[in-house]
């Protein structure tokens, strides 16, 4: 059987790390114009903006590079009433998309999680061969890895070796 799983890096996107207390999430959701996810690993999409809950008080917001003001401005406006920390981390990470019928198996070569339990539309922070990554399942056979910039050569190297091994039928 031919191996057609594609590993590609994605163009830069706007990323924000949002930390705030539970009692402020209502005001934050109102400012953003959509409900922030309330359970860890839940991903909410509203237009071009996505919000992923990583921890009890931590979210990762993403948007296209030229629409960053859509996140920054409304949240800055409610800062006085709903104290939070919004940090732009756009250049910190690079996204890698792994798509194709063997995507799950390819990622399982270096990720200790049981990827079958990661449902479509969910994302988690986890490890990939000791590198901390945010792993999102965009579709049944499509994953996105958000990797800190300096670890990208390592992760891409591992993925390309694993791809070659799969291609050889190892």
């Amino acid at each position, binding site marked *: 059987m031919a191996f057609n799983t594609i590993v590609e890096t994605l163009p830069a996107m706007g990323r924000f790390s949002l930390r705030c207390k539970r009692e402020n999430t209502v005001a934050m959701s109102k400012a953003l114009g959509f409900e922030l996810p309330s359970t*860890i690993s839940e991903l909410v999409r509203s237009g071009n903006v996505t919000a992923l809950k*990583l*921890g*009890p008080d931590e979210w990762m917001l993403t948007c296209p590079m030229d629409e960053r003001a859509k996140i920054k401005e409304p949240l800055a406006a409610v800062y006085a009433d709903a104290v939070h920390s919004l940090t732009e981390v756009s250049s910190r990470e690079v996204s890698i998309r792994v798509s194709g019928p063997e995507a799950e198996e390819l990622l399982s070569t270096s990720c*200790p999680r049981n990827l079958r339990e990661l449902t479509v539309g969910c994302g*988690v*922070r*986890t*490890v990939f061969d*000791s590198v901390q990554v945010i792993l999102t399942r965009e579709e049944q056979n499509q994953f996105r890895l958000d990797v800190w910039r300096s670890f990208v050569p390592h992760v891409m190297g591992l993925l390309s070796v694993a791809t070659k091994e799969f291609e050889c039928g190892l």
Partner: protein
Amino acid sequence: MLLIHCPYCKEKLPELEFEYAGQAHIARPLNPAEQSDAEWRDYLFIRSNVRGDHAEQWRHTHGCGRYFNALRNTVSDKFIATYEIEQPRPTGSEEGEKSNEQLES
């Protein structure tokens, strides 16, 4: 590989995502300045060395990032319970704490 239940993520996850963070339920004295040297030394450095059930802190470093407490048997390496940081130690065996193998200083 050990699977550890994170009380915040509510999932059993591989040990590689976690980090051990020492004995649990050690409260910092409210007024460190009023502590004698011996008391302060005990607070900073003296820990039990349990054979049996041990309450300890863990951190879900590569996950939700939270510290939580766990009750683990140090002989079998089995996790008996994990619970959120502000909760009391679950009732159960405290045998381990009693058979503390700490040498007298």
